[in-house]
């Protein structure tokens, strides 16, 4: 490891991080803030997902469950219980984490491809639950969720104020994932990804490590979902549907599995694409499918992965 590491960043990573922070700070004055907030929420969601697939090798195909449940709980807390935004977001995070603890505890009983199928099935179960549960509002979802006043004092009605909160939440989540990946705990996660039997033989209880990583990832997904529902004032079935699970896989794959900046780039590209193709209707699905196929066949490293390879650095 080089000496000049700061916060687990190598020098190129630190530069890239500072560039990203600068872009996050300047962007709302150039681009539409609501669009940017959407990107940041999805970027955080994708970072959470990448923590599992990129660093533990677990493909969780039902991640929308935690994202959507975080959105529902945060929205409900803000609207029905009058929680302030920070408390509502924390409630959403906890909801994602608790659901993740239950589902993860079940899913880590099987490995590889079965893990993916189990998380997908559990995600579908969560979807049906949200469809019928009284507090989610069924097909209507929870509407008119108030953004409220941060700490009970600062009004988040203006998009710029809300943007500042979203940016802080995103950077917090991003740094947390980065810190986890570069901690001793993260090293063990990577060992499990490379060779689980060997990690077991070295005396690590791999199941506990996988479960903790899974819970952290789900809590962060809940954080992203909760923040998103406050931004848009609405929490609906779209966010728990398995199509959303597919989308976060796409974002991460497109940006680069197992890179720190990949999911952010992937979220930006995917969200921008959806925005521009909004009139195209069902063609969006077709294009997403084609991108999936192309990424898997010819572009497995993703945008950031390829960039890092060209520059011979880690990103």
């Amino acid at each position, binding site marked *: 490891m080089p000496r000049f590491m700061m916060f687990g960043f190598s020098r190129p990573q630190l530069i890239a991080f500072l560039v990203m922070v600068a872009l996050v700070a300047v962007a709302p004055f150039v681009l539409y803030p609501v669009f940017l907030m959407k990107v940041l929420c999805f970027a955080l969601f994708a970072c959470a997902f990448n923590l599992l*697939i990129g660093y533990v090798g677990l*493909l969780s*195909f039902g991640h929308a469950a935690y994202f959507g449940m975080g959105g529902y709980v945060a929205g409900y807390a803000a609207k029905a219980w009058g929680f302030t935004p920070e408390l509502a977001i924390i409630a959403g995070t906890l909801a994602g984490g608790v659901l993740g603890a239950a589902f993860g505890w*079940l*899913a880590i*009983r*099987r*490995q*590889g*491809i*079965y893990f*993916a*199928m*189990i998380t*997908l*099935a*559990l995600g*579908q*179960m969560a979807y*049906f*639950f949200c*469809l*019928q549960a009284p507090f989610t509002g069924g097909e209507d979802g929870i509407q008119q969720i108030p953004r409220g006043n941060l700490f009970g004092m600062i009004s988040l009605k203006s998009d710029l104020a809300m943007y500042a909160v979203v940016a802080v939440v995103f950077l917090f989540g991003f740094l947390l994932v980065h810190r986890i990946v570069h901690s001793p705990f993260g090293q063990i996660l990577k060992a499990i990804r490379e060779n689980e039997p060997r990690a077991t033989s070295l005396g690590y209880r791999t199941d506990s490590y996988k479960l903790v990583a899974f819970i952290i990832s789900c809590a962060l997904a809940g954080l992203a979902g909760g923040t998103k529902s406050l931004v848009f004032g609405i929490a609906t079935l779209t966010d728990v549907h*398995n199509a959303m699970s*597919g989308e976060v*896989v796409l974002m991460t*794959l497109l940006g680069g599995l197992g890179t720190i900046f990949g999911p952010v780039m992937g979220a930006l590209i995917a969200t921008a694409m959806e925005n521009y193709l909004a009139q195209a*209707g*069902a*063609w*969006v*699905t*077709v294009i*997403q*499918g*084609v*991108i*999936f*196929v192309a*990424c*898997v*066949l010819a572009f*497995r490293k993703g945008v950031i992965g390829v960039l890092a390879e060209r520059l011979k650095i880690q990103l």
Partner: protein
Amino acid sequence: MFMILGYPAPLMFGQLLLGLINGAFFALLSLGLAVIFGMLNIVNFAHGALFMLGAFVAWGLLNFLGVNYWVALLLAPLIVGFFGVLLEKTLISRLYKLDHLYGLLLTFGLALVIEGLARNEFGSSGVPYPIPSQLQGAMNLGFMFMPIYRGWVVLASAIMCLITWLIIEKTSIGATLRAATENAPLVQAFGINVPRMITLTYAGGVALAAFAGVLAAPIYSVNPNMGANFIITVFAVVVIGGMGSILGSIVTGFGLGIIEGLTKVFYPQGSSVVIFVVMVIVLLVRPAGLFGKAA
């Protein structure tokens, strides 16, 4: 009218029959998934889309070429099977040296493409497919009226499952297939063309899905989403049964269909999740699946 456990018997048997029909589709689809997984080590996420494609091919054959149901039942699986050959040869075969997860992601992408194209062409509501004239009407079984077509679906699926089982377990082709599943390089060393066998296995599994699609066409409206909703439940079925055993897939498929049907009688709200609940219980009690070998 007599009652069972406080429920009218015709309602009970009616739901049981619907459950058996769903179970028949679970069995056919999970069977195909199991055969494909055994040989290709890929979970074919496109299976639901190809099931849907089978139904649309049957619809197209009827409406554009005037090909009737019975011929479509044979022709649609062949056409979709041929499509499967193309998919395997051009796309899937490039992934065998990679992690299994890439196979899942690729076929997921294929499913999005196929379903998206179908939605563009036909909209989400779908198109009707008539019940063939020979199978219209209902039969009085004494304890219930059974629509003949529904009985036929159960019968035809059961026969198809049996044929598949016989081919795999009792013929020399099946023996080679099982051997190649265990150890492909060794089988290849004996002079058997394993890559071609892999292609044909994929085509066969996909053809089973298309066969199920044609059977389903007159029951459900032929619509682009019919497979997407099904495939996730089928995955749960596969997790419950384990992909190790052919007979296991069939038994689990039919069994879970019946459980789902009965849930519709006793606790309708739970019918959409009952299979997932069963999956959770199986994971707790027997993590390797009912018929699975411990990993």
